[in-house]
C-alpha cells in the first residue's frame, strides 16, 4: 500500500475538486467546496481506486461530508502516513 502524507492528500483533493490547496483543511465541509459535486466525487473515487485500491461505493462517498472524512478513510486503509 502506497502511503502519502496529509499534505499530499490535501494536494490530491485540491486536484480532484479543482480548488486551491490552501483552502482545504480537515474541517472544511463538502458544501463549501464547489468542485466537490457529483463529478468531483467521481474523480475522487477514481483516484482512491487507482492510487490506493480503495473501492468506494456511491453511498459511502455520499456520507463523506468533510475533508476529514476523506483523511480518515485514507488512514483506515493504511494509506495515510502517521
Amino acid at each position: 500500500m502506497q502511503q502519502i502524507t496529509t499534505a499530499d492528500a490535501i494536494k490530491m483533493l485540491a486536484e480532484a475538486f479543482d480548488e486551491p490547496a490552501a483552502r482545504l483543511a480537515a474541517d472544511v465541509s463538502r458544501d463549501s467546496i464547489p468542485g466537490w459535486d457529483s463529478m468531483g466525487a467521481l474523480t475522487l473515487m477514481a483516484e482512491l481506486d487507482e492510487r490506493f485500491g480503495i473501492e468506494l461505493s456511491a453511498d459511502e462517498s455520499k456520507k463523506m461530508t468533510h475533508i476529514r472524512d476523506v483523511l480518515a478513510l485514507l488512514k483506515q486503509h493504511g494509506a495515510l502516513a502517521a
Partner: protein
Amino acid sequence: MSGSLPFADRWVLLSGASSGLGRAIAIELVQRGARVVLIGRRREMLEQTAALAGAGDRTDVCMLDLQKLDDIGPTVASLAARLGRLYGLVHCAGLAQTLPLASSKPERTRSMFDVNLFAGLELARSFVRRDVVEETGGAMLWIASVYAHVGAPGQVGYCATKGAVLAATRAMALELAPRRIRVNSLSPGLVQTEMTEASGSRLSTEQWARIAALHPLGTGRPEDVARAAAFMLDPSNTWITGADLAVDGGYLIQ
C-alpha cells in the same frame, strides 16, 4: 448438422465471449447454425459460454488478452489455419469506466481505446486477410453504444471510443464493399451485464434509476442485443453495410 440454418456451419470470431452480451451473442449464433470462436481472457468463463451454447463442436475456445495487440494477428492466423476460412467477426469486448474529465488521464482513456477500438481494428485487420475470410465475402459487427451518439457526464473517454468505433465502421464498410465484406454496428442502451454493473459501481442507486428511466421500454437484456446481432450478421442479409442499429428501448429517439 446445422447446414440448413441461416449460418450453415460458418465460423464467426467473437471477442468478449466470456459473459454478458458476448455470451448471449454466442448462444444466439450457435442456435442459428454458426460455429463460433469464443475469444476472451478467462478460460473458465469461455468454457461456461461454450457449455451454454450447446454441442462442443459448435464452439472453439480461444484465450487471448486483447490488450496485447501484437498477439491478435498471429492468433487469428492460426485459428484460420486450423479451422478453415472464417465468415464473420463480432467485436463485443469492451471496457467501460466512469471517469469525469478531470480523471480522464491519457493512460486511463488509452486502456479503453485499446480494448474498444484498437483491439477491434487488429481483429478486423487480421480477419479480412485474403487467406482468412471466406472468398465470397463476410460480415463484421461492432458493438458500439448509445454513447457513440449522445454524451453523458463521466463518460468522456468511453463516448470517445464508441464514437470512434462508429466512424471506423463506416470507413471499413466502404473500403470492404468491393470484397462483399459487410461492416455494421449495434448501439445498445443500458443492458444489465457484469460490465455495466462494474462501470456503474461508482454511481448511486438514484443515478442508476435515472439512467434506466431514460429507456422508454425499460432496460434491456443481453438476448435483445443478441437477436439484433444475429440479424446484422445473417449471411442472407446481403445489402446492409455501414449501418448502425440502435438496440436501446427507445433511448435515442427522445
